């Protein structure tokens, strides 16, 4: 048996978690999507939304917020392997929303359905750092294994993601708005445990309670937040069960005039319970955390039928995930009269 073959599983351990299932660092959440519409009036009717997200990350953070560095014991002594790479994701999100005139108390019943169309490209790198005097044969072997592991963790894939259905009840007044929902995410996206990247998060369902709250002051400022908590089932493809996580999108905007608003948008995604991994060697099983912050600009047409916003959010405080920048360009249309 080649003396370097044993390195591969260990390298895969640190290279694989980029964009596979949720239990490997990705989450089923559109971080930073919800914005000024949360603090805007929504009347009964049909709405169509087409959102474009582009995400790009050039580094990965481990559970301590550092760049991952793994020590491997070899016959020639310990070798540190630095992990790096790049992740690009372009997502077109199609969402339909129906707010009915059906009253539950003073709230109105609504339903939204969301389908992400995902294009992922992941390039992983593993760079061994050899101590002086490491035999050339060991260096060549470790480097070859590292390159192979990086190649195995790299790939690109496009396809439909997982569909979310979210029934909710919406209360609105002159000044504030709040809503509660209970959503379900179905494993409709393309997924294979053998692939490095997948449009779907995995073969599991997610139950997702939702709370939305916002307030608009008379001086033109408004504040809104959308919080959901995701409870995941077991991924039938891996036997793993992703931990639960809180996802919050919050924004504050100022109304420049009847058409334009400027604001600050942020998001938080915080995994609260650990993943349960059927095979801990092949999965990272660390808790994910990411925060993002950036500027946003919004336009609302005079007849209220067209809403457009754009924002750029830089991630920080990341744990067990890639850290990058997300750009959103979103179009919301009123479909009925």
């Amino acid at each position, binding site marked *: 048996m080649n003396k370097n073959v044993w390195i591969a599983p260990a390298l895969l351990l640190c290279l694989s978690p980029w964009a596979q299932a949720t239990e490997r660092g990705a989450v089923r959440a559109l971080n930073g999507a919800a914005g000024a519409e949360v603090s805007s*009036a929504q009347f009964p009717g049909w709405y169509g939304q087409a959102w474009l997200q582009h995400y790009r990350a050039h580094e990965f953070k481990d559970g301590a917020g550092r760049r991952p560095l793994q020590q491997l014991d070899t016959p020639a002594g310990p070798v540190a392997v630095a992990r790096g790479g790049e992740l690009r994701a372009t997502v077109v999100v199609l969402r339909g929303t129906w707010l009915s005139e059906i009253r539950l108390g003073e709230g109105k019943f609504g339903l939204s359905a969301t389908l992400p169309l995902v294009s992922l490209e992941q390039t992983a790198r593993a760079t061994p750092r050899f101590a002086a005097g490491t035999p050339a044969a060991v260096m060549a072997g470790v480097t070859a294994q590292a390159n192979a592991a990086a190649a195995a963790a790299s790939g690109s894939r496009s396809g439909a993601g997982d569909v979310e259905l979210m029934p909710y009840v919406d209360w609105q*007044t002159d000044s504030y708005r709040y809503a509660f929902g209970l959503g379900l995410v179905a494993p409709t996206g393309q997924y294979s445990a053998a692939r490095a990247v997948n449009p779907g998060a995995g073969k599991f369902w997610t139950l997702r309670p939702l709370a939305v709250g916002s307030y608009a002051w008379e001086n033109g400022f408004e504040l809104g937040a959308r919080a959901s908590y995701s409870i995941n089932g077991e991924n039938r493809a891996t036997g793993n069960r992703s931990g639960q996580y809180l996802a919050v999108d919050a924004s504050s905007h100022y109304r420049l005039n009847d058409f334009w608003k400027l604001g600050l948008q942020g998001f938080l995604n915080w995994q609260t319970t650990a993943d349960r991994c059927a095979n801990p060697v092949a999965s990272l099983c660390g808790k994910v955390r990411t925060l993002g912050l950036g500027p946003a600009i919004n336009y609302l047409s005079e007849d209220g039928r067209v809403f457009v916003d754009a924002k750029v959010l830089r991630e920080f405080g990341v744990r067990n995930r890639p850290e990058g920048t997300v750009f959103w360009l979103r179009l919301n249309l009123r479909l009925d009269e």
Partner: protein
Amino acid sequence: MRLHSLTRRTVLACIGLGASLALPVQAQTGNAGAVQSVLVAGIEFAPSTSVGNQAVVLNGAGTSNIMSTRATAVGLYLSAKTQDADKALALPGAKRLTVVALRDLSARDLSNALLDRIRQNAAPGEVEANVMQIAAVGAVFGTRKKMGKGDVLTIDWLPGSKATEFRINGESTGEPIAGERFYPLMMKVWLGPKVRGSTRDALLGAEGG
């Protein structure tokens, strides 16, 4: 009778509407001590008008928002001025609410917003006591798709017939809605406890309103 041109503004100013600045201010009428018109978001509300054969005076005017969206400019005309909402509701004589669209508003949305505000601001039992009248509000906009920017909705209390009459751009929208207890419900859409303080204060003629 839409307020898109200067000519139309002038015509409307004569009956209580018009155009000028974004905030409620006293218009320059020239006569010191005379009752002045009020300018709200480009709309001029005349100092007085008549409902039926009765004269009414402008009690106050302001903008009405739905969340952060400025939707309408509203003027309240009463038989006598008051800064007390309860007194305004109980005041005898003719009354008028003049509602000017500041942007295109779907008739369905406007109807929904009115019904929501009625329910949110009504006292216990008021909604139940006016079920037929509230249902009739939906029919007010039944023949139109929208109120365009500058369109004017007037909601008049006619004490002689004890009925509430809706007109859009001066044209009646249907038979007046009978019932003495209904008009206070409509007034509470802009004067009720869940209404923004700035809107309520403006219609009550409070300082800065």
